[in-house]
């Protein structure tokens, strides 16, 4: 039985995390409202500028506040959090404004992204339909983690709820778009992975020598526009920034 089916558990839950902080979790499993609540709640806490909060983060369905609990008692902070939780229905809260929509030129398939055919078959789609699914779904940055700047993006239509591979691909290059469980990851480095490699981009989500080393934030949206192999090579040959030809719009 999953936790959300347990009537004794109510959501959201507030818990301490070691002595490192306090976490507010909005649902037992990944859901669109739970993720939206985590992002919106974090924005609300950041705006309040509580002096105890050293930094904050939103994960798939939680907001985490880093607070030194050897210096500050958790109880008064938990009380304030409960007040903020009951101030509105966070599961129907809008995402904060000022987020960015990224349109990223993407080469689907070819020898640069060799698992498109395999992934399409698992999703029960022709290659053409698969590219249409993967390139027209507006994907949200659900959270950033695993590697610096690395987004988890969701979610694709249900037929893309395909499992991870049982084996690990030893290396996919930086900028690779990979998929599993109706999500994308976009890798900032060359990395081993159990997700299937369906697209290549020149978009680096961690740019350590740039003024803006982490271009993405949770709540941003991404669309992976298909481009030809020739256009992709042109972008690769000219882009020095790590932006990979991406265009941006501010979401209001």
């Amino acid at each position, binding site marked *: *039985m*999953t*936790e959300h089916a347990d009537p004794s558990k109510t959501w959201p839950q507030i*818990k*301490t*995390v*070691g*002595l*490192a*902080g306090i*976490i507010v*979790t909005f649902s*037992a*499993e*990944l859901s669109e409202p739970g993720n939206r609540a985590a992002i919106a709640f*974090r924005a609300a806490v950041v705006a309040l500028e509580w002096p105890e909060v*050293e*930094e*904050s*983060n*939103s*994960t*798939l*369905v*939680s907001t*985490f506040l*880093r607070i030194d*609990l*050897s*210096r500050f008692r*958790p109880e008064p902070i938990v009380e304030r959090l409960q007040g903020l939780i009951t101030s509105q229905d966070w599961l129907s809260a809008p995402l904060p404004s000022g987020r960015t929509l990224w349109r990223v030129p993407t080469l689907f398939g070819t020898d640069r992204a060799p698992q498109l055919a395999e992934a399409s078959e698992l999703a029960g789609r022709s290659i053409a339909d698969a590219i249409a699914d993967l390139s027209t779904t507006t994907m949200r940055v659900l*959270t*950033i*983690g*695993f*590697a*610096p*700047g*690395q987004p988890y993006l969701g979610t694709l239509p249900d037929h893309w709820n395909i499992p991870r591979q049982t084996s690990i691909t030893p290396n996919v290059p930086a900028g690779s778009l990979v998929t599993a469980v109706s999500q994308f990851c976009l890798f900032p*480095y060359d990395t081993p992975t159990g997700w299937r490699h369906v697209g290549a981009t020149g978009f680096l989500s*961690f740019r*350590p020598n740039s003024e803006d*080393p*982490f271009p993405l*934030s*949770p709540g941003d949206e991404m669309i992976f526009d298909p481009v030809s192999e020739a256009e992709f090579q042109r972008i690769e040959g000219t882009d020095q920034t790590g932006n990979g030809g991406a265009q941006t719009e501010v979401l209001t």
Partner: protein
Amino acid sequence: MSAALIVRSIGPAAAIQDLGRAGFMSAGLTRGGASDPTALHEGAALLRHAPTCAAVEMAGMGGSFEATADIRIALTGALMDASIDGSNVQWNASHLLPARSVLTIGAARRGSFGYLHVANGFDTPKYLGTRGSHLSAGLGRLVVVGDQLPTCVDTSINVGLHLVPEQRLDGGKVRFIRSMQSDKFDAAMITRFTQTKFRRDPRGNRQGIRMDFEGDGFKANDQLNIVSEVTIAGDIQITGDGTPFVLMHECQTTGGYPRIGTILPADLSKVSQAPIGSTFTFELLTFDEGSAVQARANVVLDKLPKMVKPLLRDVSTIQDLLSYQLISGVVSATAAPLDVDEGNKR
């Protein structure tokens, strides 16, 4: 031109470290920083500078370093043999490294990470605001032969200080508290965890250290339904085969394995410093006990500058060793040889 240390030889895993960079959790980057932050506080106390100053962290093996000018240094962390132009110098102490002299640091005799500090820290490039390397994120790099490590400006001449370090080089008892997923483990499972004797496994790095043990693995209830969630340094993560992994300073920001609890920051250096094969037990404290223990440990760190004493000029390395053993007491004196035996059996 500012003074520098020229690296003449170096172990395979030495890097510039400081207290890490906070504020990038939401970008997927954990704080990182020195494996033994206490050693940075000790070096700071010995050289009368801030604990945020950058030092060279030497994993297992030291190196040799030539000074381009007179440089004040301090040595802390894992015990290593050190000499300046062939004359032994004391660990856990500050010294003058005269211009053109060579400091030689050997392999770790106890513990894993030794630290070479210079007055006011190294003036190496900053990455995202600080100098500490975050090797798993690709920030900074290992120190290599031929590097010239510039030092910050220093106007003091005060050297010849030493301190008695907090005991943390041989494993032992590590205190932890419950965390957000501890309630996924039955009370009996947690009790068995606290009664189990663990050994530091060879499998470990700056992200996490595996704990080996005899007997059945540990298991959370509902293990497959855990959503990936925030991880912090000190988390004791139970992997799929039931083995605990202690997450270290360069761990990822989130993880999908359940955590049975979280080690107090004050005890985490015991895990990083313990050589392979060292034995551990985990003691569960209540939240209030753990919070109080940590608050006291913070005060001890703040008071370190007051604990520094002048070094007698004729104190030899042998006398240092004796004083160290007296402090560490009976338990570690017997535990150390045992650990070696256990390590050899593997």
